[in-house]
């Protein structure tokens, strides 16, 4: 238990300090959201209708961007081999690393959502709904993305290949995340159903992600 806590603390420290680059995700998120009005035009009514979708897409791309770092840096300096060989089960270590990554790179995205909601002309309720769905959905993005990150590090290929592998797996999260936030804003649909499915997706990926990532690390690193 102490080993896992130490791993989480270490990963967060590395991510948040100079050279860590966890907060670059937030900057990227901001840039994507700012780009959108240039593409669709500064029509406030249209922006507030598209708002949840834009925020979700931005968060998805931002979390994909930072996933590269989940195993790559540790692989380069050799600490990933130590983690693999340690007595802590690799599955738990992977889960701890993903949790640390989510705390360092995923949570700031949610904190930034209200500010970005202002840019997109979303009202209080809508912003709250998007932030809540992001809070429920981004763990699924991190934990499924971890599988792609583990595959990429064992194959020594990052970047585009990982995006191609991870994005199809994250489509359901995107669908239900946007559906739940739209249900609050536009209305007649039930908020509970898509939101519970979103939570379920997060829980499933919480179980599947660490096992798949650990399996591919164990098979791939020799």
């Amino acid at each position, binding site marked *: 238990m102490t080993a896992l806590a130490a791993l989480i603390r270490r990963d967060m420290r590395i991510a948040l300090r100079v050279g860590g680059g966890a907060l670059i995700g937030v900057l990227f998120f901001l840039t994507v959201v700012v780009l959108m009005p240039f593409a669709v035009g500064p029509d406030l009514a249209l922006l507030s209708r598209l708002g949840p979708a834009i925020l979700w897409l931005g968060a998805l791309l931002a979390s994909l961007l930072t996933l590269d770092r989940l195993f790559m840096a540790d692989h380069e300096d050799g600490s990933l081999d130590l983690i693999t060989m340690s007595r802590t089960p690799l599955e738990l270590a992977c889960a701890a690393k993903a949790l640390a990554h989510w705390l360092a790179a995923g949570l700031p995205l949610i904190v930034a959502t209200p500010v970005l909601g202002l840019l997109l002309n979303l009202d209080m309720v809508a912003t709250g709904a998007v932030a809540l769905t992001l809070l429920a959905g981004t763990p699924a993005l991190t934990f*499924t993305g971890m*599988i792609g990150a*583990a*595959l990429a590090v*064992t*194959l020594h*290929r990052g970047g585009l*290949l990982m995006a*191609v*592998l991870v*994005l*199809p*797996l994250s*489509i*359901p999260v995107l*669908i239900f995340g946007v559906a739940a936030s739209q249900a609050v804003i536009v209305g007649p649909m039930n908020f509970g159903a898509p939101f519970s499915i979103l939570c379920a997706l997060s829980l*499933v990926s919480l179980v*599947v992600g660490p096992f*798949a990532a650990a*399996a*591919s690390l164990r*098979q*791939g690193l020799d």
Partner: protein
Amino acid sequence: MTLIDLANPTRFLALTARLLPWLAAATIILLAIGLYQSANAPDDYQQGATVKIMFIHVPNAWLSMFVWGVMSIASLGTLVWRHPLADVAAKAAAPIGASFTFLALLTGSLWGRPMWGAYWEWDARLTSVLILFLMYLGLMALWRAVDDPSRAARAAAVLTLVGAINLPIIKFSVDWWNTLHQPASVMRMGGATLDKSFLIPLLVMAIAFTLLFVTLHLAAMRNEILRRRVRSLQMMQASQVAFSSEVGTGSREENATKEVGAA
């Protein structure tokens, strides 16, 4: 003859060389019967002649999921039993499965245009099959991205097993979500709801397509085994050439990669 006996590629090649002509003949005969029967099936009272697209569409859609299932079992073979032919099977199945999925999407959209008034609809089943198609393509990209086949095999196996979660979602999407795509009418609790005049040609076509997959899959596996043999022979030859012509070790590796790249 158990599965482990087939681990010897030579034995596998010999067995499939004897099996393949029979399988191909059975596929052609069944496909001919199925196509004849579906051409003679009565028109639907609502859909008219477009109902005949179903005889192509449904087997393709079944096969798109069945192939992923076969690949998942092969992936278990790679990861758990380290069966040497399992990764060959998984690699050979991916492009075939992608083709079946693409044909299912294509025939579905051709049917959807007159029936729903649109080629594409963001419906639960259509979306999940599209995701399946994207995953096939991603898997093929993964196979192509890594030059060491055994390393690529293990990575692809993990991804295949993760992707297998999509299969039940596709199967039950039409029951869980109230969507445009019609609910299951053949494989459901309480028997098929399809009329016999449609059901029999459909089942014949389904068996014919499954045989088609088995035939293509075995042929593709043979090709893959032969391709790997050619590759290793070329590597051996390249290293021999480099050794005999007394060049530095650096250029020997360069030669080897060139030879493989040219192949």
